[in-house]
């Protein structure tokens, strides 16, 4: 079992602390950390949970996690920014992830992405100004058998064309 090393803990900033503590979503986070005995090596799992309940990783939440796990905030921030799946910005109400793995790429996922960028007026990694749709690209979903694949609000759709994906996205507007 790894030893818990107490590194320079972050000085608590009272204002943000209160704001975060009042949040019910934090209970979920607290339970995850408690179940793992506040071990520092569960940081990634805790960040996953935080993103799941808050939608993204806001600075106050990172601060809270750092203090709970007795880790320097720089370490928590370093991990949160290293991994692609963690987002420090709020995402849109709907998400559209276009797979850009090799199989999807060879079968035209680049064209799907291009069309969506054009129609939504945003670039990959951005959210529409009205906060409705976030457009993202994935490295590979492992759904290569049904390439090109797109994930719409968490559901995988296979054998997409620029038109078919666009039609699915337009349904969100209705």
């Amino acid at each position: 079992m790894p030893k818990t090393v107490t590194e320079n803990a972050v000085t608590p900033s009272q204002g943000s602390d209160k704001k975060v503590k009042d949040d019910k979503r934090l209970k979920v986070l607290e339970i995850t950390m408690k179940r793992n005995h506040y071990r520092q090596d569960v940081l990634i799992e805790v960040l996953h949970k935080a993103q799941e309940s808050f939608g993204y990783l806001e600075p106050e939440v990172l601060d809270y996690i750092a203090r709970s796990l007795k880790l320097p905030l720089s370490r928590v921030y370093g991990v949160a920014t290293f991994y692609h799946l963690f987002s420090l910005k709020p995402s849109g109400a709907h998400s559209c992830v276009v797979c850009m793995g090799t199989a999807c790429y060879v079968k035209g996922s680049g064209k799907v992405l291009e069309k969506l960028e054009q129609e939504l007026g945003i670039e990959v990694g951005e959210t529409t100004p009205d906060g409705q749709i976030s457009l993202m690209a994935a490295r590979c979903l492992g759904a290569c058998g049904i390439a090109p694949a797109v994930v719409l609000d968490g559901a995988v759709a296979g054998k997409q064309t620029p038109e078919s994906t666009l039609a699915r996205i337009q349904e969100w507007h209705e």
Partner: protein
Amino acid sequence: MDLAELQALAEQERSKRKSIRVHCCTSTGCQAANSLGVKENLDKAVEETGMGDRVEVVGVGCMGFCGRGPLVQIDPMDTLYEEVTPETAGSIIHALNGGTAEPVQGDSQHPFFARQMRVVREHSGKVDPERIEDYIALGGYQALHKVLYEMTPETVVQEVSSSGLRGRGGGGYPTGLKWATVAKMPGDQKYVICNGDEGDPGAFMDRSILESDPHLVLEGMAIAGYAIGATHGYIYVRAEYPLAIKRLQKAIQQGKKYGILGSQVFNSPFDFKVDIRIGAGAFVCGEETALIQSIEGGRGNPIPRPPYPAEKGLWQCPTLINNVETFANIANIIKRGAEWYSSIGTEKSKGTKIFALTGKIRNNGLIEVPMGITLREIVEEMGGGVPDGEVKAVQTGGPSGGCIPASLLDTTVDYDSLIKIGSMMGSGGMVVMDKETSMVEVARFYMEFCRGETCGKCVPCRTGTVQLYSFLTKILKGQATAEDIEKMEALCYMVKDTSLCGLGMTAPNPVLSTLRYFKEEYLELLKQPQNGKVPV
């Protein structure tokens, strides 16, 4: 649980089976095409026709022919239906009473199936991945029992060594040798890690194994734990594979319930617990030292080797890291013996390998073939070639591999032959490309990937990938000169020779292999001579 109870449970499960089993694929690929709706309607139809006494519908893992899903297969008749929809599902059940089934019937004698040799995927598509009892009915966990009661840790290592199994993650390091090294290390605390961070785009073998037969991997890990003296295992799975994670969690719980995982496995003094660690989207975490950093909750930065993880790995303890497919081979090696296993394959590459056959190809999906088969047999016979066209190149090994031109399709598939022609086995992605695909663009595609995935720790990889990407962009824009290509090639070798970990060392491979086999495509894109003079 003891052996008698295990066998009794297996017997009881087998006798409970109905005479006709309708297997409906519930893996990620087929689920995306609404196979859950298909399963629901199959169940309904069984109820309506009152055939519940002899027909059962079972949700199973991947059958391999993912491009034509959702798939439904019926045993013992071995009929296969493709592209089944919830609307046409009912007719399959009605057809069992005479009548015609609406969905297209697949040909289970097609080379795509007939040429396969299923060892790891033996029960994939037949076993219910969410029920340990179903796995036990097919002889599951008997290999684990055998090692605990009939073999010493040394003989287990010996058996794995003599099977000739080599790491399936791509490197091809002899598995037995790795096990022996960790087993010899002093110390009470050792770890087993299963690397399920399948990051190569175009590869989904590990996802499929974890989704279709999770217990097979757990059994392999437990056997490894016994052999090397570890009591704790971790499975590191990509967050992009939610279904695999869910099924693993369930499998671990069920294993604990039966006393097959956890403390005192099969009432022996051996303890083995397994924890899941979920990745967060970083390709570099497939590298073993980076993966260890990630399990410890840090950034996935690789560290220099030696010391190798076998000596100082997770929390500085001796650690065995193998890939999902490697662990999935173990139970069969123990059950059927090393001699049987080493009779499959070539002299230096034993056993079978699973490939994800995708891209511009008629039959795409997963295939398991004996080592030593030729690329031509895989692509043309099993895959059915390119629809309306010709094969231009086959890409193996993902961003670390290379593009093999059609002229080399007669190369045999084994670790050494593929390295010889400038590619590598990799984890098993095989993407077929036709003449519409520009090889320079493919090279840039992979370089963009590596540029985005480099962890930034060592300079050659961090800046080298960016520079190589700009060279490729310059070429594609028609602004490059012949000198640029020379510089680019020199840079490739520098990045290869001086990077810290496998990511950087192999990142230039797609560029080098396309330069080697498709140089004319690069030359065609060079800056056109102006005023009759070739610019220098």
